[in-house]
């Protein structure tokens, strides 16, 4: 499967160096970022990587961001986080990453609220016992609510970039710390009752929502805190949930996650391999790249790994 996926990724690279979500589709940042991450440690991928990084260089906006794909022009923080995360693996991209990190930091925000509620928030802030519920995070689109997935991508990127600089204090990356801390609180606040994460809140109209393996794996990759009881509870949920999982995308993300938390992941990689035989992952480039990353993670390699 490994060779087939590498060949598929190399064949499906667009002429501008990007990858679309599936063959012959317009270049999009998400599949491009995962393709770059997955090919980074594969010898045959060298040329493709140069072209892929070149595509990101050409499409980065003046404010350091990317739009979700080449058919859109509006900057998107979640796509920027993924592009930045991918670029961390390549030399000569420091200025691109720094600009991207700044854009992601600038996009951090709380749930938009009318002025009257903001006034109430401000007044309550003087009460030391008040626990803030409207925590900051990241959105799919500006001026909407914060969600687990975009918040997780931004957290992964900011934590990694903070660790990648020799002296965060001097370079300004230390300024990310309070943002990272608040976004982590948002994720913990959103955790479902049984552990794991839905896409947003844990409840709607008083009903508990169910967690999903994919979002749970993404959130756990962002938090990467094995000693935290909430993460442990969510890992227990994830190990239970993947037994019935039929999505290769979710399985491959779970394999990544288990690898980083020291949990054996081979059975789930095997399940993802069986699905490949059945569906070839529906020719989905992001899923294929994540499968390659999952295979690499079995050998301890992962672009998501934070230094302990």
């Amino acid at each position, binding site marked *: 499967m490994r060779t087939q996926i590498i060949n598929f990724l190399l064949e499906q690279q667009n002429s501008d160096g990007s990858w679309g979500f599936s063959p012959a589709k317009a270049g*999009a940042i998400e599949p491009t970022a995962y393709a770059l991450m997955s090919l980074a440690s594969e010898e045959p991928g060298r040329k493709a990587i140069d072209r892929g990084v070149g595509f990101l260089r050409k499409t980065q906006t003046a404010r350091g961001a990317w739009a979700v794909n080449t058919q859109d022009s509006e900057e998107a923080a979640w796509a920027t986080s993924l592009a930045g995360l991918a670029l961390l693996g390549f030399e000569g991209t420091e200025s691109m990453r720094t600009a991207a990190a700044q854009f992601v930091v600038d996009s951090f925000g709380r749930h938009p609220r009318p002025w009257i509620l903001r006034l109430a928030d401000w007044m309550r802030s003087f009460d030391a016992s008040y626990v803030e519920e409207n925590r900051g995070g990241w959105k799919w689109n500006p001026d909407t609510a914060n969600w687990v997935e975009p918040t997780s991508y931004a957290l992964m990127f900011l934590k990694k970039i903070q660790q990648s600089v020799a002296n965060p204090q001097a370079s300004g990356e230390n300024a990310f710390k309070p943002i990272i801390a608040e976004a982590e609180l948002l994720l913990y606040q959103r955790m479902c009752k049984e552990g794991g994460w839905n896409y947003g809140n844990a409840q709607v109209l008083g009903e508990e929502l169910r967690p999903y393996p994919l979002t749970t794996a993404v959130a756990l990759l962002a938090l990467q805190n094995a000693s935290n009881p909430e993460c442990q509870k969510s890992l227990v949920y994830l190990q239970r949930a993947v037994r019935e999982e039929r999505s290769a995308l979710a399985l491959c993300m779970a394999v990544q996650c288990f690898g980083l938390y020291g949990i054996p992941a081979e059975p789930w990689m095997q399940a993802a391999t069986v699905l490949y035989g059945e569906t070839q992952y529906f020719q989905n480039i992001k899923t294929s790249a994540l499968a390659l990353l999952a295979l690499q993670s079995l050998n301890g390699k992962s672009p998501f790994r934070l230094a302990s």
Partner: protein
Amino acid sequence: MNYPFSTQHFELSTRSEEFSRRRFLKAASTLGAVSLAGCAKRQPSWKQGGYRKSDQSRVAILKAASYDRDLTGVILDGIRSFRLDVVGKRVLLKPNLVEYERDTVINTNPAVIGAAIEAFLKLGAKEVKVGEGPGHRRDTDGLLLASGLYPFLKDTKTQFVDLNLDDIRRMPLQSNFMGIGSLYFAETVLQSDLLVSMPKLKTHHWAGMTLSMKNLFGIVPGVKYGWPKNFLHWHGIHESIVDINSTIRSHFSIVDGIVGMEGNGPIQGTPKPVGVLVFGDDPVAVDATCARVVGLKPEGIDYLKSASGFLGNLNPARIRQLGEGVSLVVQPFEVIESFRHLKI
């Protein structure tokens, strides 16, 4: 050219004999409310290109007791009763594929989708694709397998397009309820000749009911608007439904009402057998009829009321019923507290 709502919905009587003091006060307060609403929010309107209301619509209710029956035959009958021009057309079936949980009826049943693929091919369609952009699930691959849709696609060699990850194109909206001017749509939808909305007959905890019109949320790409498409919610669910439907026409509807969902839909509700498939080429009339079938007043559902001004017919006098009459198949649905007022 815009046609403001007020010209359609706020016609004041000018006959002097009817113009009592009470009427004057009512008219004045209505005008006041309209003016205030106009100050608070942009006046909703639609472009001439978005106007599709005909004098008379038709809706067919055909009985289908279970998913094991010959559904292809029922669907062929349903399509034929509208003399739908299918020959040589690129057909895109848009089912409702949201989520999979065992023993629930969240999605359009795969047997109905499989039967529709066969029916459109038999009627001479050039190609049939199935496309959906699930509202919050990113792992569409898992949904296809777990929901049981994949074997039907494989057997009929039908292409599935994840509309969330498709190429995208920005389109000017043909109405202005959201007040945003344009929206991106999945390219496969724009390239199709015949868009068939295939919803599940379900209640919806924000919108009242989710049917042919609400089903088109799935043609708005997640890659642009996220998972879920929170952008649409922030601009108003009812407003979004109308703007999407005024801009992208679903040419035909096939509603899976064999087993519907009542209560806290669209995900956590309870299965409710109704035993029907509902067909039509006016999505407003189809959705209004479905609401009546489950014992709800369509006039109370905001998006249907707004759409009835220009997109289709809500008034039963303007809907010719084919197949079974509504009264013969009524199965009242339970609804959550906030929609109790909709009950007939």
